[in-house]
């Protein structure tokens, strides 16, 4: 990676454009090159406020964007920002998704399963896999929480309450889809309970799984240990982990660390994070 595509310290970048994705979600676009692989993340800094990790949800040769759900103080402040204002960006960091050779040469197939705001970690992958034999399933609690549903054709939509698309979860139809497509790999990002189901499905059918995990992060560069998940650092070893790594991670689907480092159930962690 050349110097201008990776930033060790935050570099201030102007917001070029803001797109309203849903009632509580906006995308922020930057006219800047970035050496980004799908699944990696960047750290976004609001000077004097805080710094948080975000997936790159829009990516081109000379631009990139992030998608921000309004949730806490940091994201509320971001939602008030206007084009021309600046944020600090460092990264990209971590390991992203891999694409098996048989998917690349057209003999294999893949399925992408996104849930809620986890979709923001999958969009660049979805775009990279366009033209290949792939299926994309997206789910959300309700119609207004569906992200990027109009950005792609040939996607299957699920809502927990049935307000749009099928009622239920993307994992409900994996069995039928696999019988038809005989997938080689399943990619997933979303609530960990959903990702656990995808991972278990993959293990049962001997399919490779790649899941993008979320843990509270501090350094972003693999030295502080805050985002540890059973010996793996989500910021450096992940955030994308494959089946072989997930097999060894007992905390996956069960435990996470609070800001203090206290290890708690994912339920308690989710309540703290407000998701």
């Amino acid at each position: 990676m050349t110097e201008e595509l990776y930033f060790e310290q935050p570099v201030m970048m102007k917001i070029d454009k803001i797109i309203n994705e849903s009632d509580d979600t906006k995308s922020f676009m930057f006219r800047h090159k970035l050496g980004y692989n799908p699944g990696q993340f960047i750290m976004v800094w609001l000077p004097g406020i805080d710094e948080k990790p975000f997936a790159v949800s829009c990516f081109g040769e000379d631009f990139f964007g992030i998608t921000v759900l309004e949730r806490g103080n940091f994201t509320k402040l971001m939602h008030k920002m206007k084009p021309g204002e600046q944020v600090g960006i460092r990264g990209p960091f971590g390991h992203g998704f891999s694409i098996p050779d048989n998917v690349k040469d057209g003999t294999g197939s893949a399925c992408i399963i996104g849930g809620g705001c986890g979709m923001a970690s999958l969009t660049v992958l979805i775009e990279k896999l366009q033209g290949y034999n792939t299926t994309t399933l997206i789910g959300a609690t309700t119609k207004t929480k569906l992200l990027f549903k109009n950005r792609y054709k040939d996607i299957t939509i699920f809502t927990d309450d049935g307000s749009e698309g099928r009622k239920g979860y993307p994992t409900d139809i994996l069995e039928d889809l696999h019988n038809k497509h005989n997938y080689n790999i399943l990619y997933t990002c979303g609530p960990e309970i959903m990702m656990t189901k995808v991972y278990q499905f993959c293990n049962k059918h001997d399919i490779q799984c790649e899941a993008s995990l979320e843990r509270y992060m501090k350094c972003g560069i693999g030295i502080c240990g805050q985002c540890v998940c059973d010996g793996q650092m989500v910021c450096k070893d992940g955030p994308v982990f494959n089946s072989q790594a997930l097999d060894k991670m007992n905390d996956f689907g069960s435990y996470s660390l609070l800001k203090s480092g206290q290890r708690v159930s994912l339920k308690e962690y989710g309540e703290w994070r407000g998701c």
Partner: protein
Amino acid sequence: MTAPNLNINLCGIKLSNPTILPSGFLGTSKSLLKRVADNGAGAATIKSVSLAPREGHKNPTVIPFEAGMLNAVGYSNPGAEETAREFANINEISIPVIASIIGTEADDFVSVVDKLSETQFSAIELPLSCPHTPGFGLLAGQGTPESTRNIVSAVRKATKLPIFVKLSPNIPEIGNLAKAAEDAGANAITAVNTLGPGMIINIEARKPVLSYKVGGVSGPALRPIATRCVYDIYEAVKIPIIGTGGISTGRHAIEMIMAGATAVGIGTGIYQRGMDIFRKICQEMETWMSENNFNNIDEMIGIAHD
């Protein structure tokens, strides 16, 4: 010719090699320390623990720069009780583990020691030297001989484990401070904590990058200072020294040992060379020692002194 022997005996604790993971790096969980052990470290230190849980400073808390790293994590930790639970089955980690303990008053340190009394830590480290967290270290006035004596004496009464006292490179008469720790019952000196604090400003944002504005300096910028501190301390005390600050190669480690260290801390180097830096450094040390006819670590300790 047989390969050089890297084993050391540090206050009665047997280490297969002199590399030690310092506090604040990766020491949040047993699972990560197992991995540090698998990567060749001789011993590891947990993230510093206070009596009550602490969330620490806001992000950014760690930022690399061209000569190392600046950090102000602010002692985030889950508190002594939770730490005792996390490290209950510490024997699953194949190397000795050191508990780094923090507090404001001497009594606070003793309370943490008591909470950890059922765990099998190999030693207690007292970092009386953090430059960037109110209520702790330098910001609690712990960098004086009086305060050091006071805290070390209190902890000495509370535990039979070896006590390591971690000192700040900011202290001009660091030998005197080390002597105060030794007199009060410390079994080793860890030298040094981060330097500073320092500051990095993003000139486009016109703001310091760290949320706490200032942070401790580690890495290459600190190394010559750390080496000098170890040299000074070696002249002042008889207890062993764990030389820490900017070491990222076998040559650096040997230099620190020649200054007077028995063991060496490797922290910021993990960012530079990866978690297997421990194994890499040991291999580099073995190679250099073979080429220069040294058979063991003891032969090299302090030989830079007149």
